[in-house]
């Protein structure tokens, strides 16, 4: 806790979580959680089911307000930055966030426009092809669960300019090839100097990860 406050003015950290607490449905998920992340760092959030991994990611991206504590982006609390902070990050949540009635390409290009990074049709097509979804003009409804995840993850290829990635279970429902590709993207992004935070249940997380264990921070 103290450590986080001392680092307040330290500019080498892009993202700081200070003394976070989260309470959901009357149950305290974690208390006094503090960590800081610099550009080029990879952080894994670990913990069993229901330990608050998703809630922590949602707090970090500003969708959820913590019951105590503050998240700072380059020294400024994120709740006062609002969409200025949202422009710095990509958050891929539990749900694939694709509309069933649109094609993968339409989903991707709309998601990019809303995030303020309009992508050309060619770039969208190339990103989908790399994720093994060739320009099939069929609605996402007809794709399998894994293909939906791929359609959602293809967004990462178009968000390489963003300094913060927050990924909730990026490897869920993917086959080996797609896991390998996603892993490569994450490592590439870290090498580019961005900060990446992710959760996973798979034992073989990325070896380079630092780990925040929510079990230890439980009340």
């Amino acid at each position: 806790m103290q450590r986080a406050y001392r680092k307040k003015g330290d500019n080498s950290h892009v993202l700081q979580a200070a003394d976070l607490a989260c309470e959901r449905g009357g149950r305290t998920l974690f208390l006094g959680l503090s960590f800081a992340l610099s550009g080029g760092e990879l952080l894994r959030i670990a913990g069993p089911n229901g330990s608050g991994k998703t809630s922590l990611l949602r707090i970090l991206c500003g969708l959820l307000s913590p019951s105590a504590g503050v998240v700072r982006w380059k020294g400024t609390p994120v709740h006062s930055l609002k969409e200025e902070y949202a422009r710095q990050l990509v958050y891929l949540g539990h749900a694939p966030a694709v509309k069933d009635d649109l094609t993968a390409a339409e989903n991707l290009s709309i998601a990019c426009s809303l995030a303020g990074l309009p992508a050309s049709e060619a770039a969208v097509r190339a990103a989908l092809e790399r994720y093994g979804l060739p320009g099939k003009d069929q609605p996402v409804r007809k794709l399998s669960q894994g293909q939906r995840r791929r359609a959602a993850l293809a967004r990462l290829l178009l968000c390489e300019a963003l300094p913060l990635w927050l990924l909730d279970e990026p490897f869920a429902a993917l086959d080996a090839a797609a896991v390998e590709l996603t892993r490569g993207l994450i490592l590439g992004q870290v090498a580019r100097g961005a900060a990446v935070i992710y959760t996973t249940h798979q034992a073989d997380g990325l070896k380079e990860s630092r780990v925040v264990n929510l079990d230890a921070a439980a009340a």
Partner: protein
Amino acid sequence: MLAAARCIVYRDLLLAMRRRSDVATALLFFVIVASLFPLGVGAEPNLLRSIAPGVIWVAALLSSMLSLGRLFAADYADGTLEQILLGAAPLGVVVAAKALAHWLVSGMPLVLIAPVLALQYDLPGSLYGVLALSLLLGTPVLSLIGAIGAALTLGLRGGGVLLSLLVLPLYVPVLIMGAGSVDMAAAGLAPDGQYLLLAALLVVAAAFAPWAIAAALRISAE
């Protein structure tokens, strides 16, 4: 900022195109409700003429209500709402665009089809324009106010019923002005005052509702 608003309108219209049955349901509901009254109260022309504005307006309120439940619920369920909340543009602009798309899909068709319904109530031709104009000014207010309710009841069990209880009382001023304008024109008076009040409601709703919707969405999505 405008790019994001355009993108949302495009997206919602595209989704409505892909799910045409949803749009048709609300429109058919409007037509059927408005058609039931002449069957129920009998074909007395004077009676029909006098109840027409109120009945058509109430049918418009209910039909606009019908599609509100889906306004944010579908996006909430598949996770796209989170991405909208994390968008690059201010949330108020984005939700205003969503309300606009809702009006284009569920409000504007009512404006276009209302004169046809007026026919079965034997309204004089001079009133068709008044009815359409009052709906044109009033239905966007319904979409804006309704979106506040839809955002507040997002993710609640039995949200649909709660939404009606929350929103229908707020529709009352629009109903009074809207139906009143047609009544005034039928009595041979100029309905300008009612138009201006409807327009004022629209301006106030357009100015303040987006921020209320945005605040409600942020709370509901937590």
